């Protein structure tokens, strides 16, 4: 009986491991697979909400030569939906890890904290890609949404936005001590970004100090990137810069979330 001399292919590390990140992402997706209604809501809900906006502005006349309101708002929403949905889903998922004791258990295993968070980012990023494909397809065919640039760029921006939502959701959940707090972090983190992103009031028309705040909020750049794709057929440098900023903000939030995830608690 020599059970202690089992061959261990992976030495004890808590360094980043693509293998552990992938198996965590697969686990998160498997959990989703058993929840058909959540999957259906993730895939269909943004399209339905977009339909409501379409009907809202359908009969409102637009001045000739001007972009219709639905084209402007609808396109922006393609970036905001995945951000909001993934923020909420992630905060709840992380809170469940905490309350079920699985988080504490994971922290005693060789899984690095960043592996866990990247696993969530990867899983929900994939879901966001599917969601964006459905929404963009419905928006451009059923609701005649006008996009000058490639719709693949719209999908890409939606996915990067979703990953930003996941990262901020993970970060926020570190500060939530209860379900009630977790849910209220949504308006705290999401709404100011939505108000100041340039959709409700053009950024040039904001008071200087509000514009300064808007400048440091990542959603602002996501919206600007979408507007660039909506306006010009060719890929613009501003768009790529904006996508880079949003991705950078997401990575920063993930790193902060990993840093605030304490292995030892009182």
């Amino acid at each position, binding site marked *: 009986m020599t059970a202690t001399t089992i061959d261990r292919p992976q030495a004890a590390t808590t360094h980043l491991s693509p293998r552990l990140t992938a198996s965590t992402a697969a686990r998160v997706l498997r959990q989703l697979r058993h929840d058909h209604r959540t999957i259906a809501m993730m895939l269909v809900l943004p399209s339905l909400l977009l339909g409501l906006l379409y009907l809202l502005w359908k009969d409102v006349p637009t001045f000739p030569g001007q972009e219709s309101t639905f084209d402007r708002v609808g396109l922006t929403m393609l970036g905001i939906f995945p951000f909001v949905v993934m923020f909420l889903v992630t905060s709840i998922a992380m809170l469940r890890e905490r309350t079920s*004791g699985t988080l504490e258990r994971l922290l005693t295993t060789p899984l690095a904290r960043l592996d866990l968070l990247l696993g969530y980012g990867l899983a929900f990023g994939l879901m966001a890609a599917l969601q964006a494909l459905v929404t963009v397809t419905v928006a451009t065919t059923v609701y005649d949404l006008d996009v000058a640039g490639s719709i693949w760029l719209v999908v890409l921006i939606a996915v990067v936005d979703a990953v930003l939502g996941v990262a901020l959701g993970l970060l926020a959940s570190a500060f939530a001590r209860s379900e009630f707090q977790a849910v209220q972090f949504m308006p705290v983190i999401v709404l100011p970004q939505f108000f100041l992103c340039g959709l409700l009031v053009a950024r040039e028309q904001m008071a200087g100090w509000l514009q300064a705040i808007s400048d440091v909020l990542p959603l602002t750049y996501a919206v600007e990137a979408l507007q660039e794709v909506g306006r010009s057929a060719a890929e613009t440098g501003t768009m790529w810069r904006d996508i880079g900023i949003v991705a950078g903000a997401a990575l920063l939030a993930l790193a902060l979330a990993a840093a605030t995830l304490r292995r030892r608690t009182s």
Partner: protein
Amino acid sequence: MDAAVTVTDLVVDRGRRRVLHGLSFAVPTGEVTGLLGPSGSGKTTLMRAIVGVQQIRSGEVTVLGEPAGSPALRNRLGYVTQAPSVYADLSVRDNVRYFASLYGMSPREADAAIADVGLTDAAGQLVRDLSGGQMGRASLACALVGCPEVLVLDEPTVGLDPVLRVELWDRFHALAAAGTTLIVSSHVMDEAGRCDRLLLLRDGDLIADSTPAQLRTDGRSDDLEAAFLNLVRAHEEVGASGHQRSDERAGSGAPRGSEQESLA
């Protein structure tokens, strides 16, 4: 070195309450050590300190020669919390395979761990559809699959029927015979007799570090429950006189903190 776990002067505070009051003991390798005491005596806190997820006030916890919680230990130690910590929306198989992957183990080894806890027939079921006892065993399988050298189990037999409980204890002894060190907590004294060694905890104090046989002698009873009670009473008499002294000291108006500082 003989001890798998060494605890020296461990003090833990939770909130403003002192939960562990300077514990010192050693857990021998390859044996089943029972951690016994009533609910609220600090068993879970002590186990959390050993697995390295508990903030400690002072003292030292060493596991397999490394400080508790160090990265090198995460492949060598398994922890099963009191409430089953598994994913309710995954099947037993998916749960165990996930934890297997974290320890670098294959799906085949995951299936073996499921068989070890007698859940092969329920492997495809979602954990949320299982009974409480089955959930506990699924949780245990997720730790067993890592083939840990030290296995820390918090009340693993709560809610199990007697037959399963005996099976599980046989399994623990088989693991110990193969070289695994087990630390098993329980608040039921009839399980104490199944352990090789016993640590009795009450209100955050260690009142016995012993074997079942020694405990029967010290507690002047063949019944472990009665022996435990006798030890508690003996301990309380000593403790009561100790408290009296500290009351007098508080009454004299000398703040304890400043006294300690002046000593340091």
